[in-house]
């Protein structure tokens, strides 16, 4: 049945992806929710949160705020926080509540920019799409907001790597700073390290290559054999496919250019019909294919299982 999950828990949503990109950039991040979404993002999807502070806030919406569309109240809360906390920018991250009441993010941005002396970006996530979409939206918002600023001298442009957040890379994520987004133009060559990196490069018109370092260890001699199926992030899959000399099929729950999986049954069907000898995927998917007796190379994907690499 479409949308019914009997085995897997929901994957990291778009709002978690957006915060993953924004975390540690020095901004005030306001999740427009009643509290639960912020709790989910921080308490589950953001492994850095337990050990490093970031100015993440819940808007603390209550029913009447949503019903009456009290945008001015939200703006005044943000202004009050911005007056008392050092920050480089303000980011407003959407959730299902503003999606339901059709919040006007452009208006919020304009209202805020009149009252505070900080750049404001808005990311219209809605909690119903997946993390790669939220990451892409955050990259796009950051690049559009900061690309006109002068790029600090000495910055090695070849190091612009997009998509290496903890949701894909776990503890091997690559930290970024807000200056990384300064002065990005079409001349810069980027590395797309995950699905969101690929999409961000596309929407921002950047030249890019796809490379997922994390995938290299899975391609080592002897780990893969016969017909191989890789189910992970798109960049992960492409990297394995490019390195493996035999037959390799890739699919992903977070893909745009590959075979797309949406339902639990999609994966089951793919494995049943594929005749694979090796599956490279998060082991939480194994219960979906009890009939499969080939090799399984466990490749944890935080956005799927919440397991860190």
């Amino acid at each position, binding site marked *: *049945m479409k*949308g*019914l*999950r*009997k085995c897997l*828990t*929901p*994957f*990291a*949503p*778009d*709002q*978690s992806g957006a915060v993953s990109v924004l975390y540690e950039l020095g901004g005030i991040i*306001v*999740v427009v*929710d*009643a*509290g*639960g*979404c*912020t*709790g*989910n*993002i*921080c*308490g*589950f*999807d953001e492994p850095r*949160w*337990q050990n490093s*502070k970031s*100015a*993440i*806030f*819940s*808007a*603390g*919406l*209550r*029913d009447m705020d*949503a019903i009456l569309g009290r945008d001015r109240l939200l703006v005044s*809360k*943000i202004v*009050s*926080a911005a007056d*008392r*906390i*050092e920050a480089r920018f303000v980011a407003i991250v959407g*959730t*299902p*509540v503003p*999606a*339901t*009441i059709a919040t006007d993010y452009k208006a919020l941005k304009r209202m805020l920019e009149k009252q505070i002396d900080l750049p404001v970006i808005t990311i219209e996530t*809605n*909690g*119903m799409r*997946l993390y790669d979409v939220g990451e892409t939206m955050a990259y796009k918002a950051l690049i559009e907001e900061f690309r006109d600023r002068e790029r600090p001298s000495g910055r090695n442009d070849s190091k612009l790597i997009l998509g290496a957040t903890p949701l894909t890379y776990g503890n091997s994520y690559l930290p970024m700073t807000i200056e990384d987004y300064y002065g990005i133009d079409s001349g810069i060559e980027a590395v797309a390290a995950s699905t969101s990196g690929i999409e961000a490069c596309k929407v921002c018109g950047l030249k890019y290559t796809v490379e997922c370092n994390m995938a290299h260890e899975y391609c080592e001699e002897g780990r893969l054999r016969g017909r191989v199926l890789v189910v992970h992030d798109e960049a992960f899959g492409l990297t394995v496919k490019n390195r493996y000399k035999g037959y390799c099929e890739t699919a992903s729950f977070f893909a745009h250019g590959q075979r797309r999986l949406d339902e639990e049954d999609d994966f089951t069907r793919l494995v049943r019909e594929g005749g694979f000898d090796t599956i490279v995927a998060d082991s939480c998917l194994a219960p979906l294919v009890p009939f499969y007796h080939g090799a399984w190379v466990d490749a944890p994907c935080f956005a799927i*299982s*919440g397991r860190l690499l």
Partner: protein
Amino acid sequence: MNRAVSYTAGELAVSGRDNIPSELLSGAGLVYSSPATLAYNSPGAEGYGVKRAALSVPESVMLIVAPGCCGRNTSLVSNMPGYRNRFFYLLMDETDLVTGRHLTKVPEAVSEVVSFLDGLEGAGVPKAVMICITCVDALLGTDMERVARSCETALREAGYKDTRVKPCYMYALTREGNRPPMVHVRQTIYSLLPECRKDPQAVNILGSFAPTRSDDLVSILNSAGYKTIRQLGDITAYDEFMKMGEASLNIVTNPEARAAAEDLRVRLNIPYVELTRVYDAEKIDRQYRSLIKALGAGDINSAEEQRDRARSAAEKLRQQFPETVFAVGSCCNADALELSLSLVRMGFKVSEIYTAIDPAQFVYVRKLAELSGNTRIYCNMEPTMINYDVSASCAHVSVGKDAQYYNPGIAGVSWNSDVQPFGYQGLADLLTQVYDRLREEHR
């Protein structure tokens, strides 16, 4: 850099109950997200939120009908003992949000889940399916009671006539309203109880979802003639849960269970008595005497053993660590202000309290101001808590997970177990834990 905003108890007492600073009120500003506020933002991440609470019904499963983000952290609970094959999801998409079509899919989804469990080795047909819906359906005005009835009809047609379907509302938007989610979920759970023949010796304790542990309360109830004491957290079979309907009295130990107790009074004619968890030995004594008076039976001396334990624990702590200074948080099984006042009355000092203040709690602030006017009160949610400076604290021991977070270098007692402390036993256990931690720290 702005320092974290705080006020002394003395300052607050002067400004009065009607002028509590906005920084100390829940919901007045943005809510800072730190490990100290996780339990506020996402009750299910620690302890019992709506999802885990609803699954306190033995032999039940849950279908979460919501956007994916609402069920994301359920992975944590799914991996805990007792929750395998109990969570299922019907994920909403953007079209569902606009058209509400997801509601038409719920009966089919429930039937598919029950059928799946029926055929699953080690599982079986659930006795109840709890349908959890979230903020989106709160705003859409979904009539989930009606959908639940449709689900029961679909199940009957599929041959599962004994499985009940109940909605539960994880509406974070209404957390400060008249019927917040944790109140509503208790009403839902106890609405399953049937009309039964009354047993004059049976009493229920309605509190949390894990058991309340208090030998003194049990002794007093026994001395009043109540020999069968049931509470949800102790019950593992649905049929045994149904027997809670036999009770001739409900004891409410958590205000969030009051509405459920009132429902049972009206529907099943079970009266209830409400007790408050306090850590002041004198108040505990007064409360038990009032309970005995209300019941018209019981012996106050039946609580003697635990009362003496509490007295000894307090004396031992005072003798060994007479100058102990506490930092008390709200992420614990206590009212932070009441606990702080009790500790001060026992002769200890409290340097910091981390809690939002509800006007109903102001009585504690006023009394604290008289005895310990310099005690500082911070609010976990306040945005400037990002700048909290631990070096300003002189506390030796923290109580509460939030207080532990702010004071990482000192002895800490989290005091936030699922199992609920109560009465003299709760007081004795807390003071014993504090003593043990301080001993460890001094070694």
